[in-house]
């Protein structure tokens, strides 16, 4: 899956939780949770949506790797092969 598709999927999942967010506002190399104000429940719901859309189940042990939007894109691309 190419980066642009993954990025679109990430934004679609994010909009379901934070409808006020527009893709242009997000700095891809800055911490995502600070920019979108996601609490742990939001973050979990975000991962649930990604799991539904992409079939990737992110274990808790990998949370620390997923800080910025770019981190998510790289991680998902690697997992999707």
């Amino acid at each position: 899956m190419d980066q642009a598709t993954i990025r679109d999927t990430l934004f679609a999942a994010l909009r379901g939780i934070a409808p006020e967010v527009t893709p242009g506002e997000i700095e891809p190399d800055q911490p995502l949770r600070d920019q979108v104000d996601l609490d742990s429940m939001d973050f979990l719901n975000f991962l649930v949506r990604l799991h539904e859309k992409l079939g990737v189940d992110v274990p808790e042990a990998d949370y620390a790797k997923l800080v910025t939007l770019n981190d998510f894109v790289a991680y998902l691309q690697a997992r999707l092969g």
Partner: protein
Amino acid sequence: MIEFRLPSLGADMDEGKLVQWNVKPGDPVKKGDVVAVVDTSKSAIDVEIWDEGTVWELVQAPGETVPVGTVIARLLAPGETTAHAEEERQRRLTAAETAPVPATPVEAPAIARPPAAAVASRPRISPAARARAEALGLDVAAIAGTGPDGAILLEDVERRATEGAQPRDRGAEMRRAIAAAMARSKREIPHYYLATDIPLGRASRWLASRNEAHPVSQRVLMAALLLKAVAVALRRHPQLNGHYTDGAFRPGTGIHPGVAIFIRGGGLIAPAIHDADAQGLDELMRQLADLAARARSYSLRSSELADPTITVTNLGDQGVELVHGVINPPQVALVGFGRVTDRPWVDQGTLIVTPVVTATLAADHRVSDGHVGAALLDEVARLLQDPERL
């Protein structure tokens, strides 16, 4: 005949605007059915019914704003006939004509409400004004009347029309509701505050290994475990679970913690999870997630807002370590949790680094003393050392 009244929508909510009926005369209803949708400053609320019967008449029409306690529908009890209900209505109408005008409530509510007798009537509006408002697509309930007894006149409608349609500012309304409730709390409730640090090494490890074995959709957050611990601890400390009303404490009939949920765009709502002490952890987590999602899409049920018996707030995600809570009246306590952080801790004489959370209690001194509050926090801490039993 059963009179169905607008239920309490939480301490800070005196009235609701009927948005729609989900039932019509002749429909059978049973306990727990959502029969109407009511809008308040905080949320659209699905109003449930707690009687079984058949809808006989819908007293209030969509668009009406009515105080809590107003009869909004009448139902035939099981086995009751229409003729019997009609008879009862006639009797009531006769009684109403001779009854004295009810006295206005002694304690003036923050939001002026019409006396009970006037409640059943629609907003006073002249036929010409109503026709004009309908033609302009204006909501009659939102127009301020300047005529006798606040009746809405044609000129009021015209003035409203020229002011332009004002988009509803739910954020501002919610802020006013929170301000009223919190000001009352700080004015009336003699708060006392306690805090304790709780090591969560065992709980964190247990949760991590449990979550490892489950897909992301079935993961449990620490917030659910903390909530469960508070709910179970409250069983032995009923003085902190209930309502203080009319100068007396009434213990809760169950343990229904209101969970503080922040609303995007500003505001806060704390709907209840019923009988949280009796729920399994997975079920509690499911309810917590469901409640957060529905609170944020402004779709809660009347029973969730009416009766929280304590509030639990978790501000750890914002990075704070300590919460000094303000009790949500008529409740008598609030438990707050800060962030779970790795801290130095002495464990059986050895200095270790372990995840720790600071739990705080704000409680009502009219009902309990620090001794009781301290025992509650101690019990919460103890329960969290044995997470698999929660």
